[in-house]
């Protein structure tokens, strides 16, 4: 039995080993039992609309995809690895420029070979999500 701090440390190492997650400055905030919370800072070079400074939707996709993958890896059935089968993202509003973006993902159903995920992305207003996602991921045993 590993304690939650160990889980967080292992998860952070897992993220650090992913070059793209590191390039975006992702940080594991919470992880455990088919759930993950990962956040990243706003940055000038990630802007999609220079008129407003709003971060590009693609960045939010990358964060949610990583977060969903981490939630699958944290599932109690211990998948060996995972890959995205499909991911649908609904963009509800623009993320506020300058604010940190946080994704929370939950693996709400797991079969032998497929994980079903739900995720939300938030800026610093926790009551008003920026985006929501649903996806199916492989679970390799």
């Amino acid at each position, binding site marked *: 039995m590993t304690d939650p701090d160990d889980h967080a440390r292992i998860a952070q190492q897992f993220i650090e080993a992913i*070059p793209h997650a590191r390039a975006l400055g992702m940080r594991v905030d919470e992880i455990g039992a088919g759930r993950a919370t990962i956040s990243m800072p706003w940055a000038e070079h*990630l802007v999609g609309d220079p*008129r407003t400074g709003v971060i*590009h939707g693609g960045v939010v996709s990358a964060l949610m995809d990583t977060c969903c993958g981490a939630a699958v890896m944290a599932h109690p059935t211990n998948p060996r690895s995972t*890959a995205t089968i499909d991911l649908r993202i609904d963009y509800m509003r623009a993320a506020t420029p300058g604010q940190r973006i946080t994704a929370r993902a939950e693996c709400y159903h797991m079969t032998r070979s497929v994980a079903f995920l739900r995720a939300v992305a938030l800026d610093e207003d926790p009551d008003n999500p920026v985006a929501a996602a649903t996806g199916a991921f492989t679970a390799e045993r």
Partner: protein
Amino acid sequence: MGDRNEPLHQIKSRRDSALAAMVTGVPYMTWLGIRFDRRGDELTAILPYDDKLIGNPMLPAIHGGVTAAFLEVTAIIELGWAAMWEDLESGRIAPDAAVPDSLPRLPKTIDFTVDYLRSGLPRDAYARARVVRSGRRYASVHVEAWQDNRARLIAQATGHFLMPQP
């Protein structure tokens, strides 16, 4: 349409500079290294390989989020490009990267669904988008990405977009 006697170099430079202005106006596209190849009005997006795009260092494979972003960027540029084509050809607009207000406003993503078909290899990727339906307010776009073989897609996506209002 345009003047058929317009010098070819002038036509090419108008189209290429408008496209370049649209692309370089978006910092995230520059950071990912995305470029566009143009044949007439047909665009092909190019994502040159870079180590920072890796999502699985063991395989290795390109990050699924990068693939999603590449597809989304391609869809948005194609849609923005198609929407501005008439104005560009008639000379009503002349986008210039140095003048942010001269750049056309880009469509906003409403939703985007990516279908991952093969893992992205550590090499260049290409994408083309097709505007399936473009109304005054909403548009639906399909986009495909591949690497070595055009027929062996690494991913495809469908997205809905909100068109910029005049």
